[in-house]
């Protein structure tokens, strides 16, 4: 284990603001240099209300420029910075320091599991998006469109409220034990996307999608472990949605 010392702060601390002394322990791996992943610990100061992403950015910008991870929006909508933080899948930009560490404590950060690590916290997302594409993740209605909107009731629209909330961050799929042991399982995120179209009253491809989810890579692999629901940073009741898709497959309709 390497230890970087040089305590520095993530933000210019205004007078009177509580600063925490923390250790950030990051699992690092560069396949061009390292035989295997290794932990490196960095000393930082942070405010309790800082995001874990602020802390990781600070490490990159001022202590260890080669540290690699994805990030973009900084407020939980782009889904880039899914990581394993203190053992749980979370978005680094939606996790506040005060919720994961006390003064003098340690925050551990690792890449999400089940996808190949390309460098440090950055993983190969292609298999995840391949599963997404496999469920026909697009609206299908080949009948001529009306001049204005297709009418849909408020209740029917609300049916998509949970599933359309998904930002494809992969927190759910990479927290799923079945996905870890069986990479061909489509995984929770893809099933949530399927749900979004299966329960859209305007869409006409329900049966095709149910057919895809009835295959051995599909919905029956789910063992109802609830990891996905716990991991979702958008509070989507994923396990419940998967159960709804299972019922739709069973009875052949949505």
């Amino acid at each position, binding site marked *: 284990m390497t230890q970087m010392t040089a305590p520095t702060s993530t933000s210019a601390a*205004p007078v009177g603001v509580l600063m925490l002394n923390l250790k950030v322990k990051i699992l690092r791996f560069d396949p061009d240099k390292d035989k295997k992943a290794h932990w490196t610990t960095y000393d930082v100061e942070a405010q309790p209300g800082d995001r874990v992403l602020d802390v990781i950015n600070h490490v990159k910008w001022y202590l260890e*420029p*080669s540290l690699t991870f994805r990030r973009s929006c*900084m407020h939980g909508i782009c889904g880039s910075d899914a990581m394993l933080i203190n053992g749980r899948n979370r978005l680094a930009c939606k996790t506040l320091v005060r919720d994961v560490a006390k003064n003098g404590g340690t925050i551990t950060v690792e890449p999400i599991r089940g996808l190949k690590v390309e460098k440090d916290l950055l993983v190969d997302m292609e298999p995840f998006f391949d599963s997404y594409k496999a469920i026909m993740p697009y*609206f299908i209605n080949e009948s001529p469109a009306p001049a*204005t*909107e*297709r009418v849909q009731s408020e209740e029917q629209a609300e049916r998509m409220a949970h599933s359309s909330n998904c*930002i494809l961050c992969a927190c759910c799929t990479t927290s799923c034990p079945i996905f870890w042991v069986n990479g061909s399982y489509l995984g929770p995120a893809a099933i949530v996307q399927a749900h979004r179209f299966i329960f859209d009253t305007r869409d006409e491809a329900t049966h095709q999608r149910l057919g895809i989810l009835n295959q051995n890579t599909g919905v029956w692999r789910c063992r109802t472990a609830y990891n996905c629901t716990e991991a979702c940073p958008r509070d989507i009741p994923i396990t419940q949605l998967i159960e709804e898709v299972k019922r739709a497959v069973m009875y052949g309709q949505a």
Partner: protein
Amino acid sequence: MHHRYDVLVVGAGGAGLMAALYAAKGNVSVACISKLYPTRSHTGAAQGGIGAALGNVQEDHWEWHMFDTVKGGDYLTDQDAAEVFAKDIIDAVYELEHMGLPFSRTPEGKIAQRKFGGHTRDFGKAAVERSCYAKDRTGHMILQTLYQQNVKAGTTFFNEFHVTDLLIEDGRCRGLVAYELSTGELHTFHAKAVILAAGGYGRVFKITSNALTLTGDLMSIYYRKGLPLEDMEFYQFHPTGLAKLGILVTEGIRGEGGILRNDSGERFMERYAPTIKDLAPRDIVSRSIITEIREGRGVGRDKDAVNIDLTHLPREVIEGKLAEITDLARTYLGMDPVKDLVPIQPTAHYAMGGIPTDLNGLCLSDGSGGSIEGLYAAGEQACVSLHGANRLGTNSLGDLVVFGRRAGIYAAQYARQVEYPDMPEGAQRDSQDLLDRLRDASGKDNAAAIRKELQESMMNNVGIFRNGKDMEKQVGIVQELKARYRNVSVSDPSRRYNSELIEAMELGFMLDCAEAMTSSALNRTESRGAHDREDYAERDDTNWLKHTMAYKDLNNDGNVVIGYKPVALKGFTRAFEPKPRVY
């Protein structure tokens, strides 16, 4: 590596995805290049809605929307663009619905609509319900829906590729060069037409709603070639960013009835915009908030924020139609909008200026009709001058779909008619030089430190209120930071996912955008829309009813040459005379 496509799209947000979709419908080969994964583009952060005169809730007409857009833009809006926009957007919203976008609905099952700042009926008489929305994640749904449709259409994506250069020779775009993040390899893309749709550059400011990736890359690449950036002085601060963080809090919060209050609980907007109060356009609300703070009526420990009050609204509205921002307030401030007042402050949000284009998205090379053959732009990157001096809320999502679509259509049409142009010799040379300089520099200066100084100084000197003295100082600061930037070195030598290299390159792009912006703002000696000068408080239509065109002086680095372009003061069928802007 070498690639060849009829049409290349740079950027995979709303404008890029719409352009790619329409180019693909034009029977040409299309590829889309993004420095992210497409679903991570910043269009996803837009919350409140997309304005279109559907009239689903109240009577509405495209002429009213056109008027609001022109007046909202403080008459710097090109009225031909506003007319095309206000008509086309109606059709475009229906088209999004036909693509499956899950809009919120009225009790009759139509697309729901709500109020938004500056949108009125009867040419300014009262606020109108024009913003179509999908809860408060409208941008997220537009981004997802357009990506889904591109998956369906089989569009080719090059994800995590950073464009490093545009290949323009003899007034014709021939393709581009891009850096593949996973391998460190440069790729040459040969094309008949290129569409630029890579978003804004809000990261030049310290407090911003913009993603870390919004660094103005393509604007800078265009500008580095001696080509103009239009109206860069017009930069919008969104009135309601979460205090300290700058995270966007949708204007839909005021559209649903949210009220801004100062430290004594006063609804202060009644003093600044007596007719439409909290629903005044963004520039006016932002200045009103800063005025309250400056006069000592702010809230919070540093008295540098004001409150937004939702507590009088029903819980189901707050947790239903405003679920996204409720979650943001709870997550980041530990506050619950159902019972707490939420502190907000203005946040750098949107570039009204950018790469100048005509109505079809064709990029302009000067202020008198010159253009770059085969090069198009749309979205925040572009300046068709729909937004003029100040953009109305919801008109950015509208801009993306209307002008993204037009760019896609016309780029494909052009590509069908022409042969592939010859590629310039040594196409990768400039890109290679750029990367080598960053890799080989031996300086000790830190890119992050320079970036921080840039962001803080831009915030202080070219923010909501401006004056000549501060901006002159900022011209000097940007020059000094550019000089230091020349010595910045990248310590990570790796080829694989070298994000240090990328961030250093992005800083160079940001410095260019800041340079063009600061000089354009210093040059304009009037107050108009988002450009508010304490030393020139009045709008001056006699001298300044014209667009700024800022050029880099290629023979004298740091020097900006300013030119002008007339404002289109008439639409095709309607025209609105400049009038004082009161609400």
